[in-house]
């Protein structure tokens, strides 16, 4: 479930407010959005993909939060790790055309 919006990284662009499919966030004038409806989070990681600042962290547990706060911010290697993996950062754009599903589908 969504657990952290890093106030240090967030620019308040509110892209996540729009992009979250289940309307979890609420805008806060002049600041980082609020995680207003955490129970509605479907742990889909889409907000991480759309945040240009890698300011969000979705914890892996779908049923209950892990109880993280900004102080528990995970290693920077995990922040934005999904965005990098699918090629949505400038440095990793080549990953967009890497899809090995055909091998998995064939593979036995």
């Amino acid at each position, binding site marked *: 479930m969504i657990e952290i919006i890093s106030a240090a990284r967030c620019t308040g662009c509110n892209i996540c407010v729009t992009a979250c499919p*289940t309307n979890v966030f609420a805008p806060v004038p002049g600041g980082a959005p609020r995680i207003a409806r955490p129970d509605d989070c479907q742990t889909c990681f889409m907000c991480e993909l759309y945040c240009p600042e890698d300011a969000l962290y979705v914890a892996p547990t779908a049923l209950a939060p892990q109880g993280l706060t900004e102080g528990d911010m995970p290693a920077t290697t995990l922040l934005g790790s999904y965005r990098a993996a699918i090629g949505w950062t400038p440095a990793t754009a080549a990953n967009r*055309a890497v899809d090995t599903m055909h091998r998995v589908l064939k593979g036995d």
Partner: protein
Amino acid sequence: MGTASSPSSQSASSESVLDCDVLVLGGGPAGTWAAFEAAAAGARVVLADKGFCGTSGATAPSGTSVWYVPPDAGRRHAAIVSREALGGHLADRSWSARVLDTTCQTLHLLGERGYPFPLDEAGAPIHVSLQGPEYMRLMRKLAKGAGVSIRDHSPALELLVDEAGAVAGARGIRRQLGDLWRVHAGAVVIATGGCAFLSRALGCTALTGDGHLMAAEVGADFSGMEFSNAYAIAADFASVTKTLFFKWATFTDEDGAVIPGAASNGGRSVIARHLGNGRVFARLDLADDAMRASMRTAQPNFFLPFDRMGIDPFSQRFPITLHLEGTVRGTGGLRIVDETCATRVPGLYAAGDAATRELICGGFTGGGSHNAAWAISSGRWAGRAAADFGRRVPSGGARRGAGTVGLRDAGARPFDPAAAARRVMGEVHPYERNYFRTEGRLTDALGRLDGQWAALSASAASDRNDVLRAREAAAMTAVARWMYRSALARTESRGMHRRMDHAGADPAQRHYLTSGGLDEVVVARRAAPALPADMASGVAA
């Protein structure tokens, strides 16, 4: 309606009113293809999504394999025939051929429009899968580019009908603004996805059967609702379901002993039974190094929860669960009456998971692929037909909202959406009720679900803050009743529908089941297409 390329708007009291030729409800693959196609045909199109078109629905956060077969008659025939037994011989070869054709053309079009398909050694694109975030971001762009007006965070609550009973628009809420919207349209496409009953399956939270309920309220009916008990494997702490990857798993019990017969395909019921008594663990240790690497780059999101928990799924055991995916990876949905994906109600079309997929996969979707192909194909056909129909309907005229439960005062009893939703979930999530069906357990559950429907029907209208949740709970209640009533009527096991008291398929029941109705649920048989000559012998029908 007019020839202007953008919808015209006006304000009426507190509702914003838009006028267009085609209204598409739902912005997943089916909805975006429908909208794109309708706009390309010259219609003025509005697409309203409950969430954000591009991230919402079952495809967006996932990776989907697609039923893609190049235009080679032999290969296509083989692809169609290979799945017939799995689906209980209810698929229709002519529909399968149409879907293969349209899907193939569409994937080529996607490549031309910028989808980054991976390339083979010879540099040719490989079309068998689509990455959800990339695909749906592009679909939003293509729809917008075609002139579609997209309304995000705008769930539809009810359909509007004209004096003759034809569908003429919809009404909904703008949940981030707290006000209402109203769209007058010549035709409406229902592309609101399947119903997964708020299980935690990836991308399924918005999929509560809203479109099913809205369509039933104007008189549409359903087919194949007994094929609605798809369960997918996931780590028990995670949302990400990807049953395919568990082909390489060893399944063990609490003590580490291998569970005989447990498998992702053909052994999922063994897993379900064990989960009834204790925990089940998996380790993907059957994948070799090359396959492990391929899995990582095939579906990065599968590994996110593991990486973040510090678990190596290839070398460490982790507890698993089965998430209900309901009709999302089931095959039942709105019945379509012709090749345009029209429902039986004039002006109303259905596409994607909201519609029945029995025509191409019978009673079982297996490892997917067919659903993605169906969403593309049915979306394009419905969009085209809705444009032709909607543009001929004269604008103006009286319209009334067709919605029932949660929208109109029918009594003083307050409607508690969260409690109602929980009660439906309690009837449809448990394996012992929905996976392993029996007459007794289905009848008991139906008694409670019918009671809930009657109670909700006699409740007060919900206020604006609660109305979406109320409609979702009402929709899930209605869908569960069509499901279980159909499941009760099919006294055999076929496709994914499994009756503990009727093992095996009964040749006399190789038919479709139509269901529908709100206060009174009815189920009727329809003939399935004749068995092809090459199947007629030796098949247990």
